[in-house]
């Protein structure tokens, strides 16, 4: 088998499109996941003990089962429960919920890492709960949650390859189809590896830049 770069050139438009779908699903799933995860984390922190325990159940289930099984359950089992979703909506919803579970834990750890005294100082000065979250907790934990968030983003990008199994027309689906169509398996796998790797490296780099920006005000923790 010889490596034939022409295959890649010939299918460039499809490859770009597949990359686009992967990026779009990844970013959208993550954005919704971050929002939902933040909501879950704040609700767990301020909603009382019972709410905290009740919310822990779905979070732990989502974190304790493979993403693949979750997709299968929703995609193939959903219709039997009256939830018939196309591959893309199903993929997006699964990615959102899955990432929300993980992000909620990141935020929970972030909240916990802000010294309680900083919150108390704000309470003493009369800041309301919402003001404390917005003005103290969020900015203070931004630096703490950034590295795990970037890590998580990378993990989610890689998990999104699993969506190929329910025919979402993303990167892995597209390229492996090209591979079997052209009998260019070597090229396909190689290309997949390179594209994912490039996206991961780029996002890690972005993460480091953001971290450097954020930490300018904090040479060392007091």
């Amino acid at each position, binding site marked *: *088998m010889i490596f034939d770069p022409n295959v890649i050139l010939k299918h460039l438009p499809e490859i770009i499109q597949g990359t686009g779908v992967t990026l779009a699903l990844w970013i959208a799933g993550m954005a919704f996941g971050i929002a939902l995860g933040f909501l879950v984390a704040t609700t767990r922190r301020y909603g009382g003990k019972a709410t905290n325990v009740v919310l822990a159940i779905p979070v*732990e*289930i989502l*974190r*304790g*089962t*493979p*993403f*693949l*099984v*979750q997709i*299968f*359950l929703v995609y*193939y*089992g959903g219709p*039997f*429960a009256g939830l018939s979703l196309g591959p893309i909506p199903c993929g997006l919803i699964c990615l959102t919920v899955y990432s929300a579970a993980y992000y909620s834990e990141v935020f929970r750890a972030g909240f916990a890492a802000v010294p309680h005294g900083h919150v108390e100082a704000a309470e003493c000065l009369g800041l309301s709960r919402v003001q404390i979250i917005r003005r103290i907790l969020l900015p203070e934990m931004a630096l703490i949650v950034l590295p795990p968030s970037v890590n998580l983003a*990378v993990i989610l*990008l*890689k*998990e999104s*390859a*699993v969506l*190929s199994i329910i025919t979402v027309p993303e990167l*892995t689906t597209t390229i492996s189809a090209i591979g079997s169509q052209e009998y260019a*398996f*070597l090229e396909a*796998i*190689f290309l*997949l*590896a390179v594209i*994912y*790797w490039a996206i*991961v*490296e780029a996002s890690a780099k972005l993460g480091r830049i953001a971290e450097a920006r954020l930490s300018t005000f904090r040479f060392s923790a007091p």
Partner: protein
Amino acid sequence: MSFKLFFLLLKAAGWTLSISLVSILLGFALAIGLSAVLLSSKRLYRAPAELFISFFRGVPLLVQLLFIYNLLPFIGLNVPSVVAAIIGLTLCTAAYQAENLRGGFESVPRGLIEAADMAGFSVRQIFLRIKVPIAMRLTFPALVNEAIMILKSSSLVSVVGIVEVTKMAQDLASSTYLPIELFSSAALIYLVICWSIALIGRYTERALPGGVK
């Protein structure tokens, strides 16, 4: 859903467990070596290890598995399915664990090493008697997490021809048309295993002597 189907899933869980377990152990051994290289002061030694880690952390496991299964034969290494699955999971987890361990070694407080230095320990004795146990203790929670991650990732090894829990559920679902029951059962099996690992991990962690404060 009949008990027979569930029993088939349980049998397939044997593959899930054994492949994950072997990969975790092999991966850990490899990770210790890798982290030692990563801590080297010579850029020349570090570079290949960093490249290795960057690749295995930057490429989806699905693609890695295909890589190993379908491309290794072209360099004359024709590995059977089980071996390919174990190699894939091992290399992947080694990359993650090596990073964890590196962090662990770096956060062994300097003072503890100086104390050993004062008592006349050799470099090797310091590594074995002080650094390794403390780094292990510091990275233990991350290690347990990694074990859980690998267990979940093992659902992907069906692409190289292993019928583990997920693949079995998928096969059974396509002949019995009971996807909800089968995939829920698969999820349950994963949950029980993952939670057991987490529980054992937490128990062991508490039993381990002293963390660094």
